[in-house]
């Protein structure tokens, strides 16, 4: 298509204005509102005991959920791509469920199974373990919503690299573990890292599923997104500033995630 200058400029302007209004403005307003009353005030809200505890709980969630999902993701991708078979095909089609189910339904589902009146409720109550309205339930919710990322990033890479090298290694007498560590893992590493970044972002930012199974007690079961939710729903000027401060922390984390994603995808293209 040969596009006239006028058409080119108007297309460019339309696209950029759309992105400016939809993407850039919201982030700018969050930063602006946070530092409206000065840096010191914002920093004060970021370092209250509730805010620090929320940040560390969020990081703890990600620190447990992401490694578990990474191990599962790589294993599951290997099963789907290399082993095939009927059960593997079923697994393949069910993996995407967490992307499609509303987070609120995730919370409801976990309550129905692990809650006091749930399927396994009596078992856990008898052993004095509290799952729902406590950290373990929030962890299950976080794992649920961030589960498919690693599988979905690794599986296509496994298809692309093929299994000739793995077979060669096996022929030369390498054990399964040796083949995995020396051949398979290095060739899928970019996919794994990309999946880890995406699941970390999702684990840190999840609100819906975690909200249902959290008791919303500051210092105990409030993650950073829940803190934003709770403070923004409260009245009073201090509450909303505190919400903006927590939102800024999350926004900074997501900008770092975004930078990592952009750098990685260009490196990945180069390595191909």
């Amino acid at each position, binding site marked *: 298509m040969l596009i006239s200058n006028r058409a080119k400029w108007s*297309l460019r302007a339309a696209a950029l204005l759309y992105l400016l209004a939809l993407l850039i403005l919201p982030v700018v307003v969050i930063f602006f509102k946070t530092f409206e009353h000065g840096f010191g005030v914002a920093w004060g809200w970021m370092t209250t005991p509730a805010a620090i505890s929320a940040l560390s709980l969020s990081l703890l969630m990600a620190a447990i959920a992401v490694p578990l999902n990474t191990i*599962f993701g790589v294993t599951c991708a290997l099963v789907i791509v290399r082993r095939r078979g009927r059960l593997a095909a079923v697994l393949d089609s069910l993996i995407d469920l967490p992307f499609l189910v509303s987070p609120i339904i995730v919370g409801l589902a976990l309550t129905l199974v692990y809650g006091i009146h749930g399927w396994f409720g009596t078992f856990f109550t008898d052993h004095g373990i509290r799952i729902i309205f406590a950290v373990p339930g929030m962890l299950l919710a976080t794992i649920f919503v961030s589960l498919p990322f690693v599988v979905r990033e690794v599986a296509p890479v496994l298809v692309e690299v093929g299994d000739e090298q793995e077979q060669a290694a096996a022929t030369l007498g390498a054990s399964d573990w040796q083949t995995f560590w020396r051949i398979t893992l290095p060739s899928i590493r970019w996919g794994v890292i990309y999946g880890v970044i995406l699941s970390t972002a999702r684990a840190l930012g999840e*609100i819906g599923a975690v909200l249902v199974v959290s008791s919303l007690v500051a210092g105990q079961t409030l993650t950073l997104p829940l803190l934003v939710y709770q403070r923004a729903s409260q009245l009073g000027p201090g509450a909303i500033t505190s919400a903006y401060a927590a939102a800024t922390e999350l926004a900074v984390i997501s900008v770092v995630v975004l930078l990592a994603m952009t750098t990685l995808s260009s490196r990945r293209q180069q390595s191909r």
Partner: protein
Amino acid sequence: MARRRGGLALGLSTLYLSVIVLIPLAAVTIKAVSQSPSDFWQAVTNPLALRALGVTLGAALLSAAIGAVMGTLVAFVLIRDEFPGKRFINGLIDLPFALPTIVAGLALLALYGPDSPFGVHLAYTRAVVVVALLFVTLPFVVRSVQPVLLELDREVEEAAASLGASNAVIFRRVVLPALRPAIISGAALAFARAVGEIGSLWLITAKVPIASIVIYADIESDAPLAAASLALVLIVLSLIVLVLIRRLGGRVAH
């Protein structure tokens, strides 16, 4: 040996997925169908549930349609145009996947709420729901159209132009048909995501009934049967979309 390890890996993967995802979702289904059919019907067809389903599906559909048009436009400009800062803008497209949705919701409240700096008071209306959904689903269409546009053979377009076709005709007859599958699968993913979206909507939808928020209210008021019934309807809808996407050959990502 390899075979046995493979069996173990398959077993562990299935177990993990079952404990975290499948058993809980089965519990929702079983809960919903444990009541009599008429109770189930009552739970999903009462005025509030119907209105919530209508608003949710309508907003998701509208945002998917607008997103399909604007996403294609953005992808087109990012691939075919050259301007300073293009790489930065391109990287920015993934922001909605990286930014927690509650932060987006708070930003929309600040922009369009009672203290709107532009005097635009969209908060608590259906319009702001569509804006929020456009934000969270922006990357789907852009990221699915971009690679196709990049691979598109431009000689066909040049041939069409040399035969006297106008730009509008070339776009409609040559470019759009090639992009259509990518646009549709991107928009279908956006739709599926929009139906289940909640984080960005919490703070800005006080009285607008959104299906997920109605389910949450049911859970809070200790009405698990009503919650499970509405949830089952949403799950079935999502599964239909999933099957359609598979048919279209699209890939579910993010």
